[in-house]
C-alpha cells in the first residue's frame, strides 16, 4: 500500500482522500526539520533531504483531518486524510503537533495567526475561551489567561522567553504577528519544559516554517482601519537553495488616535510599529542549524494622561473632537519607546530514536517612558539570555525528554530616575518529562526543579539585595478515548518568585498613573491546578466541557493605600494568603447536515476568583463571556464564488456584568459587540477581507481595560471599517 521509495536521498510519498483520490496542496510539515512541503496535483510530494528515523511528519489540509506519523526509512508513505466537517480543538478529531508537548495528553489550545481578517494578533487570540486582553486601543495590548496576566503569563517566541517589563499593564506583548503562523496556549501551570513561573499560562508563538521550493515565494500585505486611520504594510520572502533556507519579513504600521462611539478621538492612543526579521536554516544530513534575528521598534502613546485623580476627570478632557492627519500621527507625550532585539540559534541532531537539541537565545528590551520631551521618566535595558540543552528519546509508545534551562537576566537603568532598580538574576531549571501512549490510553508526567538567585546592587537606591528562591514544579495527566468520547485530566503545580518590580518599585509609574511601592519581604507564590477536559464529537456536532480549579497561596498583589504622593494614589505590593480561581470553559461547534459550509461555533467562559482573606475580589479579572461565530464558506457554490466571495462571518461577544472586583476597581456592566467579515478571493494568489467592527457602535469598556479607571471608563473603539489585502507569489 505504501508508496515511499528512496533514491539519492530522495523521499517521496502520496496523500489521498478516503476515496483514494489524490489531494493536492496538502501541507507536509517535517517537524524536526522545521520544513514545509506541499503535495502536487497528483497528491505526490518529494524531498531531497535525508529524513532521520523517528522524525515527526505532520500532514494537514484545511477541511481534512490532519495526521502525524513517525518516519521510518524504507517504509512506504501513503497518507489518507479524511474529510472533516468539524474542527474542534483539533484533539481527538485529528492529530496535531505542538511545541509544548503531546496535545492528546496536555490541554493545549491553538490559534492560527495567518488569518487575513485579523484586527490585531492579541484580539485574535482573545477569541479563545478563557482568554481576554488588557488594552488601550490597538497600540498596547496584552493577554490575560483565566484571569491572570503580567508575570504570571509567560510568552515564548520561537523558543525564546520574552521578558519586556511585562509586569505593568501598559507594557504590551512586544512583537507583532509578522511571519508568525500559530500560537499555542497552555492554560494554568502545566508548562514544565518552559518554566515554572507560568502560573497563569504559557503562550508559544511560532514562525512559519521554511519552505522547500525551487521558486522564490512570498507575500505583500496591506491593511487599513478607519477607526484610527491605521495603515499596516508587510512583506515576506522565502528562499531555498539546496540545504540552505531563508525567510525574511518586514512590517511598518502607523496609527493615529482611535475613534470612540461618540465620534471623538482618544487623545494619544496613537502608535507606530516597525519590525524586520529573518531566519536562516542549514541542514546537513541529520544535523540542522537555524539562526533567527528579529528587531522590533514601537512608539506608543499613553492615553488618558491627567495630573488629577483619573477617576474624577471628564471624558472630554482626554479626547479630541477631530483628528488632524498632519499632526495626530506624530508621537506626543507621554509616550513609550520600545526597542526589542532577538537573536536565536537552534541546533539539533537526530540519530536512531534520539534527538539532541541545543538552544541559545538572547533578547534585549529597551523601554523608555517619556512624560517630558527632553528626558525620560525611566529608561531601562533588560537583557535575557537563555541556554537550553535537551535530549529526547522516542519509541512506538514511549517518549522521554530530559533537559534544562539556564536563564541569565540583567535589568539595567540608563538614567538615575528609576521605578525599578538595577538587578540581575540567574535561573537553573532541569526537568524530565515522560509520555506513554497505548491504544486509547495515555499518561504523562513531569517534574522540574528551579533555582533562582536574584541580586540587586543599586547605588542610586542604596540597595544591596541577594536572595535565592527554589522550588519544584510538576505536572501529571491522563488521557482516555472511548469511541467518540475523550477524557483528559491534568494535575499540576508551579511556583513564581517575586519580580524586582514587586520587591523594589518606588516611584510614579506614568503608564498606570500610580505611585507604586514594592515590598522586600515578598516570597514565592505557589499554585496548584486540576484541569479536566471532556470532548465529544460526531460529524455534525462537537462539544467540549473544561472545568478547572486553581489554588494560589501567597498571591502577590497591588493594594491601594490611603495616601497620595506627588498627586498620585499610592499602591503597595503585598501577599494574600490564599486565592482560589475556578471556572468552566465550554465549546460548541455545530453545522447542519444539509449545509456543510455553515459553521456555528460558540464558546463559554465562566470564571470565579475568590480572595479568602478580603471582602474584595482580585484585580483585573475579566467578566464571564459567551463568544459566538457564524461562518459560511462559499467554496462549493460556483454561482457565488464567481463573484469572488470566499466566506462571510459574524462574530458576537457577550460580556456579563462583572461584580467581583478589587478595592480600587468598580462594577462593570454587561455589553454586546458584533463584528462582521467578508472574505474575497480574486484568484488563488490575491485575497481580500472586509470587516465592519462593532456594528452596533456599542459604548463599552471591558472590565480589564487599561482605561477602565479613567473618566468612569474610556470606551473601546466605536464602529469601524477595516480592509486587508494580501498577494502571495
Amino acid at each position, binding site marked *: 500500500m505504501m508508496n515511499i521509495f528512496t533514491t539519492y536521498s530522495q523521499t517521496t510519498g502520496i496523500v489521498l482522500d478516503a476515496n483514494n483520490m489524490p489531494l493536492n496542496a496538502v501541507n507536509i510539515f517535517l517537524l524536526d526539520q522545521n520544513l514545509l512541503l506541499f503535495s502536487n496535483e497528483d497528491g505526490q510530494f518529494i524531498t531531497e533531504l535525508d529524513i532521520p528515523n523517528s522524525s515527526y511528519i505532520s500532514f494537514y489540509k484545511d477541511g481534512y483531518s490532519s495526521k502525524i506519523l513517525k518516519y521510518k526509512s524504507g517504509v512506504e508513505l501513503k497518507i489518507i486524510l479524511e474529510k472533516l466537517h468539524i474542527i474542534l480543538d483539533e484533539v481527538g478529531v485529528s492529530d496535531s503537533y505542538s511545541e509544548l508537548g503531546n496535545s492528546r495528553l496536555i490541554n493545549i489550545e491553538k490559534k492560527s495567526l495567518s488569518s487575513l481578517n485579523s484586527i490585531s494578533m492579541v484580539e485574535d487570540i482573545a477569541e479563545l475561551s478563557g482568554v481576554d486582553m488588557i488594552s488601550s486601543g490597538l497600540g498596547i495590548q496584552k493577554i490575560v489567561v483565566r484571569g491572570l496576566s503580567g508575570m504570571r503569563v509567560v510568552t515564548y517566541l520561537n523558543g525564546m522567553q520574552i521578558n519586556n517589563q511585562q509586569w505593568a499593564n501598559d507594557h504590551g506583548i512586544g512583537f507583532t504577528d509578522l511571519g508568525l503562523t500559530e500560537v499555542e496556549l497552555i492554560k494554568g501551570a502545566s508548562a514544565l519544559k518552559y518554566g515554572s513561573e507560568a502560573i497563569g499560562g504559557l503562550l508559544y508563538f511560532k514562525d512559519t516554517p521554511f519552505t522547500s521550493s525551487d*521558486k*522564490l515565494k512570498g507575500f505583500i500585505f496591506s491593511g487599513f482601519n478607519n477607526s484610527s486611520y491605521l495603515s499596516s504594510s508587510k512583506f515576506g520572502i522565502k528562499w531555498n537553495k539546496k540545504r540552505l533556507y531563508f525567510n525574511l519579513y*518586514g512590517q511598518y504600521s502607523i496609527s493615529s488616535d482611535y475613534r470612540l462611539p461618540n465620534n471623538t478621538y482618544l487623545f494619544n492612543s496613537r502608535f507606530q510599529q516597525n519590525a524586520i526579521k529573518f531566519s536562516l536554516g542549514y541542514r546537513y544530513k541529520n544535523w540542522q542549524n537555524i539562526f533567527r534575528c528579529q528587531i522590533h521598534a514601537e512608539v506608543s502613546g499613553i492615553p488618558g494622561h491627567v*495630573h488629577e485623580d483619573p477617576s474624577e476627570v471628564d471624558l472630554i478632557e482626554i479626547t479630541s473632537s477631530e483628528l488632524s492627519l498632519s499632526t495626530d500621527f506624530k508621537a*506626543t507625550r*507621554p509616550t513609550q519607546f520600545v526597542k526589542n532585539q532577538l537573536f536565536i540559534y537552534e541546533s539539533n541532531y537526530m540519530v536512531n530514536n534520539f534527538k539532541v537539541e541545543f538552544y541559545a537565545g538572547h533578547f534585549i528590551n529597551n523601554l523608555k517612558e517619556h512624560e517630558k*520631551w527632553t528626558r525620560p521618566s525611566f529608561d531601562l535595558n533588560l537583557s535575557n539570555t537563555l541556554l537550553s540543552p535537551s535530549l529526547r528519546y522516542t519509541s512506538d509508545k514511549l517518549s522521554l525528554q530530559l533537559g534544562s534551562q539556564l536563564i541569565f537576566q540583567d535589568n539595567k537603568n540608563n538614567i538615575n530616575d528609576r521605578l525599578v532598580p538595577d538587578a540581575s538574576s540567574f535561573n537553573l531549571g532541569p526537568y524530565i518529562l515522560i509520555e506513554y501512549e497505548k491504544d486509547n490510553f495515555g499518561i504523562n508526567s513531569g517534574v522540574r526543579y528551579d533555582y533562582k538567585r536574584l541580586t540587586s546592587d543599586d547605588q542610586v537606591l542604596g540597595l544591596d539585595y541577594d536572595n535565592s528562591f527554589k522550588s519544584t514544579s510538576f505536572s501529571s495527566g491522563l488521557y482516555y478515548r472511548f469511541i467518540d468520547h475523550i477524557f483528559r485530566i491534568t494535575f499540576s503545580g508551579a511556583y513564581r518568585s517575586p519580580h524586582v518590580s514587586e520587591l523594589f518599585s518606588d516611584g510614579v509609574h506614568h503608564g498606570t498613573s500610580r505611585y507604586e511601592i514594592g515590598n522586600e519581604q515578598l516570597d514565592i507564590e505557589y499554585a496548584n491546578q486540576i484541569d479536566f477536559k471532556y470532548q465529544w464529537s460526531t460529524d455534525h456536532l462537537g462539544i467540549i466541557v473544561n472545568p478547572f480549579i486553581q489554588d494560589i497561596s501567597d498571591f502577590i498583589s497591588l493594594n491601594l493605600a490611603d495616601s497620595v504622593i506627588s498627586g498620585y494614589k499610592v499602591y503597595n505590593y503585598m501577599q494574600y494568603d490564599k486565592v482560589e480561581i475556578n471556572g468552566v470553559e465550554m465549546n460548541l461547534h455545530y453545522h447542519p447536515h444539509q449545509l456543510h459550509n455553515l459553521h456555528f461555533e460558540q464558546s463559554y467562559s465562566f470564571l470565579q476568583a475568590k480572595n479568602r482573606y478580603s471582602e474584595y475580589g482580585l484585580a483585573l479579572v475579566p467578566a464571564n463571556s459567551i463568544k459566538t461565530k457564524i461562518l459560511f464558506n462559499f467554496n462549493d457554490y460556483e454561482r457565488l464564488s464567481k463573484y469572488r466571495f470566499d466566506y462571510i462571518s459574524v462574530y458576537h461577544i457577550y460580556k456579563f456584568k462583572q461584580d467581583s472586583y478589587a478595592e480600587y476597581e468598580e462594577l462593570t456592566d454587561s455589553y454586546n459587540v458584533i463584528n462582521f467579515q467578508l472574505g474575497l478571493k480574486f484568484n488563488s494568489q490575491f485575497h481580500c477581507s472586509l470587516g465592519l467592527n462593532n456594528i452596533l457602535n456599542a459604548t463599552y469598556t471591558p472590565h480589564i481595560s487599561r482605561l477602565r479607571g479613567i473618566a468612569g471608563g474610556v470606551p473601546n473603539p466605536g464602529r469601524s471599517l477595516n480592509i486587508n489585502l494580501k498577494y502571495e507569489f
Partner: protein
Amino acid sequence: MKEFNLLTVAALCLALAFTSCSKSDDCHECHVAYMNSSQQEVEVEIGEFCGTDLEDVEAPGYLHSIEETIVGMDTVPAGDYNVHCEEHAGH
C-alpha cells in the same frame, strides 16, 4: 533574474518603509498645573520653550515662578510650580 528583481523591489520597499519623512519639532507649549479646591487641574500657560530652554524647564527640581493668575473661575496663587510640557487633548 526575476528573483533578483523581486528582491530588489522588496529591499527598496523596506528602505522606504523605514525612512521617516518627518523632522522633529523641538519647541513645545508649556504650562504649570495647579490643583484647585475640587482637586481639578487648572493650567496656566507659560509660553513656548525650545532647545536648551526646554531642557532647563524640564530639568528635575526646576520650578517656574508665576504671578497670581485668574483662569476662568479659578485663581491660581503666585508661587513656584512644576512645569509640564506634554500635550493634552484640546482640539
